[in-house]
C-alpha cells in the first residue's frame, strides 16, 4: 500500500497548491498511472489491429482473386510484388505469419489484457493504482520496444518471419529454408522475448494487485467477473509464457550457436547439416504448452468483460455467478493439459493422442456452462442495446459457432482430415479471434466514458456492430465448407491441384466480405478518435452500473478517488432486485415504479431494507462493526 499512500500524499500536496504538477512526459509518456498505461496499451493495440487487418486484406485478395494484378500495391510493398504484378509467394507467407503473430500477441494479448486489466483492476477492486506502478510502466515500454522491433522486421530486405505464427523448426531455424528465416526470424524472436517480459511484468502486477489491494469488503466472492477473468488470465500467462520463452531460447541456440535441440538429419541447400538427435516435435510441445493456454489468455478477458456487460444491460444479475467463476477456473486448469491436440498428426505417439483427445473434449463442458449462463441471463431481462451489449451478444454467438467446431477438431480421428485445413482457420477465427475481438470492442464501448470522460456515438456503434457482425459471419461461415472439402491452409493458390479447384466463387465472396468488414472498422476508428475530443460529455454512471469504477469522478485523477476509497458491501450484480415479502404490501405503486433497478456495490444492506433477503438482513450488524473498524484504519492511512 505504500505506493498508493504516496500517491495520495502527492494528490493532497497538489491540492495544497504546492505545484508538483507532473510534466507532459511523466504524465502521458513514462506514466505510472494505470489508466494512462491502459490507454497506451489500447492505442498501440488499435494501431497493430489496423496493420494486422490490412495484411489479411492483402492476402485475402490473393486468395479470392489469384489472377488480379497487385501492381497497385507496389508503392507499399515494392520488391515483394513480382515483375509480372503478382504477390511474391514468400511474402504471402510472411503476411500470413505476421497477421497471426500481431493479432494473437499484440492485439488480443497486449491490446486486450493490457488495456482492460490495467484499466479495470484498480478501478473495480477499489485501489489507488497497481501494486507496482513502475513495473506497470516497464510492462508497457517492453511491449513498445517489442512492437518497434517487430515493425522494423517488415522493412528488411529478407522480409519478416514467414514460417507461420507457430514458427515450427526446422523451417524457422534454417535461413536456407526460406529467406524470412534469416534476420526476420531473429527479430521475431527478440521481439517476442521482450513481449514475454512485458506480459510477465504485467501479469505479476495484476495478480498481486487483485490479491492485496482490494478495498474493504471486496472479498473474492464479491469481485466482478471481469476481475476474476483478468486474475485467472494473468495466472495462466505467468505459468505458460516462460515456457514459450524457453522454447524461443532453444531455437535461438539452434539458429545461432550450433546446438541441435530441434534439428536432426537435415539435408538442405545441397549439404547435409551436422545436427543429429534433435526433435522438431519437442518444439511443438513447448510451443503449444504456451500456445493453447494462450487461446484462453485471449478469450477469458473477453468472457469476463461480456459477463459484466450482459448483466448490466440485461438489468439482471449474471446467472450462476459461482458457476461462471468455477467454469473459468476449470477452463484455466484444463487449458494446461490439452496442448497436444494441436499435434495429433505430427507423428506423436497415438496413445498420447487418445489422452489429449479425452482431456480436450472435457473443456467443452465448462464452455457450454458459460454459454447457457449467458443465455439465461438474457432470459426475462430488460435488455438495453448499447453498442457494448450488441458486441457482447455477438461474442456469445461466435463463441457458440466456433466452440462447437472445436468438438470436431478435438476428436483425433476427425482431426486427421481436418487438421491444417480451412476448417481450423474458420474455427479459431470465430472462437478466439472474433470472439476475443468483440470482447475488446465491447469493452471499449462500455468503458470509453470512464477512460475519456466522453461518450462514443451510439448510432455509429450500431452501424459498426452490424457491419462487423454480419461481415465476420460472411467471412468465416463459408470457410467451413472449404475446410470440410479439405482445402489446406497457408496455400498461396489452389490452382496446382484438381482436388482444390472448386470454390473459386466462394473464395472470392469471402475476400469481398473481408474487405468490407475491414473498411467498416474505420467507422469505429472515426468514432473512437473523434469522441475522445468531441464526444458528448459522459454522465457519472452512464449505464447505471453497480461496479466501483462508476463511483469515481468522471475524469478520475491520480489515485482514482479524491477522498477515501469506497467500501463494498454487496456483490456487483444486484440489478432489478425485487422488494422482499416484508415490504411487498407496504410500498405504493409510485414508490415501486421509482425504485432504481440497480444497487451499487457501495450501498450497505442497512440502506436497502426493502430488497434485502433474510440472510442479508443479518449482515447489517456486521456492516456497522466493520465501518467502525474501517474508519480507524483509514485515519491511519491518511496520516
Amino acid at each position: 500500500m505504500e505506493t498508493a499512500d504516496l500517491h495520495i500524499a502527492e494528490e493532497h500536496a497538489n491540492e495544497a497548491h504546492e505545484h508538483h504538477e507532473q510534466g507532459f512526459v511523466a504524465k502521458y509518456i513514462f506514466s505510472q498511472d494505470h489508466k494512462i498505461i491502459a490507454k497506451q496499451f489500447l492505442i498501440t493495440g488499435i494501431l497493430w489491429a489496423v496493420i494486422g487487418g490490412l495484411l489479411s486484406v492483402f492476402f485475402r485478395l490473393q486468395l479470392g482473386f489469384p489472377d488480379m494484378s497487385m501492381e497497385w500495391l507496389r508503392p507499399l510493398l515494392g520488391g515483394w510484388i513480382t515483375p509480372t504484378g503478382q504477390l511474391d509467394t514468400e511474402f504471402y507467407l510472411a503476411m500470413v505469419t505476421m497477421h497471426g503473430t500481431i493479432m494473437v500477441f499484440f492485439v488480443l494479448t497486449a491490446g486486450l489484457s493490457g488495456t482492460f486489466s490495467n484499466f479495470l483492476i484498480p478501478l473495480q477492486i477499489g485501489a489507488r493504482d497497481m501494486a507496482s506502478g513502475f513495473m506497470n510502466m516497464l510492462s508497457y515500454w517492453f511491449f513498445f520496444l517489442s512492437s518497434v522491433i517487430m515493425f522494423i522486421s517488415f522493412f528488411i530486405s529478407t522480409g519478416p518471419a514467414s514460417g507461420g505464427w507457430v514458427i515450427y523448426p526446422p523451417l524457422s531455424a534454417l535461413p536456407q529454408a526460406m529467406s524470412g528465416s534469416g534476420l526476420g526470424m531473429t527479430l521475431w524472436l527478440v521481439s517476442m522475448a521482450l513481449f514475454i517480459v512485458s506480459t510477465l511484468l504485467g501479469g505479476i502486477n495484476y495478480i498481486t494487485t487483485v490479491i492485496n489491494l482490494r478495498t474493504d469488503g471486496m472479498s473474492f466472492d464479491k469481485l466482478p467477473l471481469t476481475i476474476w477473468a483478468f486474475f485467472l488470465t494473468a495466472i495462466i500467462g505467468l505459468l505458460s509464457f516462460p515456457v514459450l520463452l524457453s522454447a524461443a531460447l532453444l531455437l535461438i541456440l539452434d539458429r545461432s550457436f550450433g546446438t541441435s535441440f530441434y534439428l536432426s538429419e537435415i539435408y538442405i541447400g545441397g549439404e547435409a547439416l551436422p545436427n543429429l538427435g534433435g526433435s522438431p516435435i519437442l518444439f511443438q510441445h513447448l510451443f503449444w504448452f504456451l500456445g493453447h493456454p494462450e487461446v484462453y489468455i485471449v478469450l477469458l478477458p473477453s468472457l469476463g468483460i461480456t459477463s459484466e456487460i450482459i448483466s448490466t444491460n440485461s438489468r439482471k444479475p449474471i446467472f450462476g455467478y459461482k458457476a461462471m467463476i468455477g467454469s473459468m477456473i476449470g477452463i484455466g486448469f484444463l487449458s494446461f493439459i490439452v496442448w497436444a491436440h494441436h499435434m495429433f498428426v505430427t507423428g506423436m505417439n497415438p496413445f498420447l493422442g487418445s489422452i489429449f483427445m479425452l482431456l480436450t473434449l472435457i473443456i467443452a463442458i465448462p464452455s457450454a456452462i458459460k454459454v447457457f449462463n449467458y443465455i439465461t441471463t438474457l432470459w426475462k431481462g430488460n435488455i438495453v442495446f448499447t453498442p457494448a451489449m450488441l458486441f457482447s451478444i455477438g461474442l456469445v454467438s461466435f463463441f457458440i459457432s466456433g466452440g462447437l467446431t472445436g468438438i470436431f477438431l478435438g476428436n483425433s480421428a476427425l482431426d486427421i482430415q481436418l487438421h491444417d485445413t480451412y476448417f481450423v482457420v474458420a474455427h479459431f477465427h470465430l472462437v478466439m479471434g472474433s470472439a476475443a475481438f468483440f470482447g475488446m470492442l465491447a469493452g471499449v464501448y462500455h468503458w470509453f466514458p470512464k477512460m475519456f470522460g466522453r461518450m462514443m456515438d451510439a448510432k455509429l456503434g450500431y452501424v459498426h456492430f452490424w457491419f462487423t457482425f454480419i461481415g465476420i459471419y460472411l467471412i468465416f461461415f463459408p470457410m467451413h465448407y472449404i475446410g470440410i472439402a479439405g482445402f489446406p491452409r497457408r496455400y498461396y493458390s489452389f490452382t496446382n491441384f484438381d482436388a482444390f479447384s472448386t470454390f473459386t466463387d466462394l473464395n472470392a465472396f469471402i475476400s469481398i466480405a473481408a474487405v468490407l468488414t475491414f473498411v467498416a472498422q474505420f467507422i469505429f476508428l472515426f468514432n473512437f478518435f473523434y469522441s475522445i475530443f468531441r464526444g458528448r460529455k459522459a454522465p457519472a454512471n452512464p449505464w447505471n452500473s453497480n461496479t466501483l469504477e462508476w463511483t469515481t469522478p468522471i475524469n478520475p485523477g491520480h489515485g482514482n478517488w479524491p477522498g477515501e476509497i469506497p467500501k463494498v458491501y454487496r456483490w456487483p450484480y444486484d440489478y432489478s432486485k425485487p422488494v422482499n415479502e416484508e415490504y411487498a404490501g407496504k410500498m405504493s405503486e409510485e414508490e415501486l415504479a421509482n425504485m432504481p433497478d440497480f444497487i451499487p456495490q457501495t450501498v450497505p444492506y442497512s440502506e436497502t431494507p426493502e430488497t434485502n433477503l433474510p440472510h442479508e438482513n443479518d449482515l447489517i450488524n456486521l456492516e456497522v462493526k466493520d465501518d467502525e473498524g474501517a474508519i480507524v484504519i483509514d485515519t491511519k492511512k491518511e496520516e
Partner: protein
Amino acid sequence: MNQILLGAGIVLLVLIIGLLYKISIMVGVARGKKEGPESRSNTVNGVFMLLFLVIFGAMGWISAYLYFDDYNIPVASAHGSVTDTLFWWTMGITGFAFVVTQVLLFYFSFKYRYRKEARATYYPDNSKLEIIWTVVPAVVLTLLVFYGLNVWTDITSQAPEDAEVVEIMGMQFAWKTRYPGADNQLGNYDYRKIDAANMFGMDLTDKNSFDDFMPREIHIPKGKPVLFKIRARDVLHSVYVPYFRLKMDAVPGMPTKFWFVPTKSTADMREETGNPDFNYELACAEICGNGHFTMRMTIVVDEPADYEKWKKEQKSWLSKNPEYMSQVPAALKEVALISSGIDTEAGKITEASF
C-alpha cells in the same frame, strides 16, 4: 497521378462522411431526440436480432444445401468411411446444439428488449439447471469421445504384416517415393549420403536397397492394406490425401507412418466423379516454404493385378544409376548385380563401368 487522385478521393470521402455525421447530430439535438434505452434504436436493434436469426439461419441452411456436393467430397479409403460417419454424427449433435443455442440467444435478445414499464426478473442462480447443463453435455461428449477413441485406435494400430510398403519423402518442394522392390524390404538410408541422384540417401552397403525403386508417381493396390512410411529430409512437410482422409506429418529425423486400405481405384473414381482426368493427389499440409502450395504428386490406385504388373515393370534405382555400384561393398557386388536386375541388362553395361 492516379494515386494522388485516389488519395484526394479518400480524403474527400472522409470529410463528407464526417460532415454528414455532424449534421445528423445537430439535427438530432435540434429535434430533441431521446438517447438511451427509450430511444427507437433499442427497438430497431432488438428487431434486427430477430431478422439476423431468420435471414442468416436461412442462408446457412440454403448454402449448406447448395454446396453439399462441393464439400462432401468422395471417400476412397476404408477408415475414411468410418471417420466420415463419425463426422456426420458429430455434425448432427453439434448442429442441434448450435441451432438451439443460437435461436435462444437471438430470440431472447429480441423478446426481452427494453420496455419502460417492464422490470427484469431477478434470477441469480438455479443449481438444478446448472447440473442439468453440466451433465447433459458431459454424457454426450463421453459418447463422442469413446466413439472417437475406438476409431482412432483402429486407425493408428499396427499395420498388417502383408501391407504394401511405400516410402514417401518430403523435400522442398516435391514428394519422392521409394518402393522396397522384390524383397519387400526397404534399404537403410543415411541423410549424409544424399546427393543429386541419390535423393533418398540410400545406404548401398545394405543389400535390401539394391532392388528398391523410385517411380515418378505412387501406385497402390485397391482393397489391400498399404503402409506409408513417411519422412522428410529438410523441413516439416505433411502427407495429405483428402480422398483417403489421410494426413501425417513428415518430420526430419523422425520417420512416421500411416496405414490404410484404399477402396476405390482411380478408374472407379473417374466413373464416380464423372471426370475422366481424375487423379488422386498427394498434397502438403504443413507450411514448408515458398513452394508449399506446389507440392503435388499423383497417386494411382490400381486393381491388384494391374498393380502387381506395374511393380514388375519397375527397374531398380541401382540399375538406372549403375555408377553407384562403386559404393557397394565388394562382398555384395554379386548380390547387387542380381537383385538390382543389372545382370539381365549386362549386355548394355560393361563390367568396366563398375
